[in-house]
């Protein structure tokens, strides 16, 4: 246990010093600052106003950039150490593979999750200071959703990192997974739907297996289902499943996906040659 804490702590410290972490924090913090400067909280479009509108815009952008940031920065975690012979040296000390792997997972999770949450907290504090009404329900939902999305992609990234030997290949796979989940799967499902080869329940079921899709729908689930901005699929889902159940599913499912991939990654890491 002390080794697990040590590895998580050292990985966290090492990541915080890295340049990517600075860029990562600046992107999310900068987004919030940009929204305030642009006067997003003072505007009202399609029924959204104040901090709700700001948080909604923040989460819509986060859907796109958070997964790729997590994948690119994490996928090299183990494969990079293997590449540079750091793993060979660090594992020459009496540390179990379990402690090493899960310590890295915990350390990296804190690193990727904290900046996105801090950016939202800053928005809430600044909004309160400006006298805006605070949408607590949305804030807590987004905190949970970001936790779930971070878990899912961190698990996928560690899974890739555990079997790939070079970090270039790891980056290539990470990019492919991101673009596939972000766009290709939707395009494929839409074309299937248009051809009416499968019924819509099956297609929407497949779409919801994508953690990015479930995040996207859950992020707008607290708003009025009649809003046109939701789109037909989100409307269909929220009309079919109760809102509470869907919110619960959208948090629990990605966490389970993340845990399954992390666990598979560990199994591969422990079964394969280490260097």
């Amino acid at each position: 246990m002390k080794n697990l804490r040590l590895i998580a702590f050292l990985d966290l410290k090492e990541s915080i010093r890295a340049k990517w972490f600075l860029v990562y924090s600046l992107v999310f913090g900068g987004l919030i600052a940009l929204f305030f400067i642009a006067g997003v909280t003072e505007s009202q479009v399609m029924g959204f106003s104040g901090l709700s509108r700001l948080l909604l815009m923040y989460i819509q952008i986060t859907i796109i950039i958070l997964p790729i940031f997590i994948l690119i920065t994490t996928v090299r975690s183990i494969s990079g150490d293997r590449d540079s012979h750091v793993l060979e040296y660090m594992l020459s000390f009496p540390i179990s593979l379990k402690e090493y792997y899960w310590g890295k997972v915990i350390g990296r999770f804190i690193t990727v999750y904290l900046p996105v949450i801090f950016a939202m907290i800053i928005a809430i504090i600044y909004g309160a200071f400006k006298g805006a009404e605070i949408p607590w329900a949305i804030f807590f939902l987004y905190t949970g959703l970001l936790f779930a999305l971070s878990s899912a992609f961190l698990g996928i990234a560690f899974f890739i990192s555990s079997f790939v030997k070079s970090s270039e290949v790891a980056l290539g796979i990470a990019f492919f997974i991101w673009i596939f989940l972000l766009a290709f799967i939707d395009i494929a499902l839409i074309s299937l739907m248009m051809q009416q080869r499968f019924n819509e329940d099956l297609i929407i079921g497949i779409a919801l297996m994508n953690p990015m899709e479930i995040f996207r729908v859950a992020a707008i689930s607290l708003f009025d289902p009649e809003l046109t901005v939701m789109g037909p699929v989100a409307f269909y889902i929220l009309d079919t499943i109760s809102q509470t159940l869907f919110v619960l599913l959208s948090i629990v499912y990605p966490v389970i996906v993340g845990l399954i991939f992390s666990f598979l990654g560990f199994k591969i890491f422990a079964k394969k040659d280490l260097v």
Partner: protein
Amino acid sequence: MIEVKNLTKKFGSTVSLDDVSIKFNRDDAIALMGANGAGKTTLIRSILGYYHPDGGSVLVRGLDPIRERQEVLKHIAFVPQLPPPIKLSIDELIQYIEVSAEVKRETILHYANEMKLDIETNIKKSFFKLSGGMKQKLLIAIALSQESEIIIFDEPTANLDPKARDDFYRLLDGKGEDRVLLFVTHRLEEVESLVNREVYMDLGRVVSDERI
């Protein structure tokens, strides 16, 4: 203390270790030699439990280094040929070793001092930002401070200047008692005074094993 029995390790179609059997006992100070690709590093990595063998077995103090890696590695110290680009600061690296290998910080500082390495002024510096010689000195200091029964040095003096080499030899003098010292080297003359056994490998096999 180390028993390698019919060990075979393949990487794709390349046979890196071909049915190797060898024993390293207490009081052995071995120079492990051979051309590039002879299988020296693969043998060491198998002893450290990094590789899953395709055939045969490795036992360290009667234990499997893969299944019982923590217990086995408590008794092994390792100095790699090239210091890896560890991004931790020296302070953090020492903390890692203090906790994982239960080595006292003072002991590491003592050996670093003996290697004429000024740790205190560089303590917050990243390990990878040190010069090649400084990194190697620190890794040697760490290995010696572990007081392990088995110490494996992979070309330990490659980055050291003549003075640092002398310090290294002086510190190792008398360390071979009741231990296994394993030096991977291309130049026998560098460790000749420290070893009592020479092992040559070629094409994944042990081709000669002589006591001096």
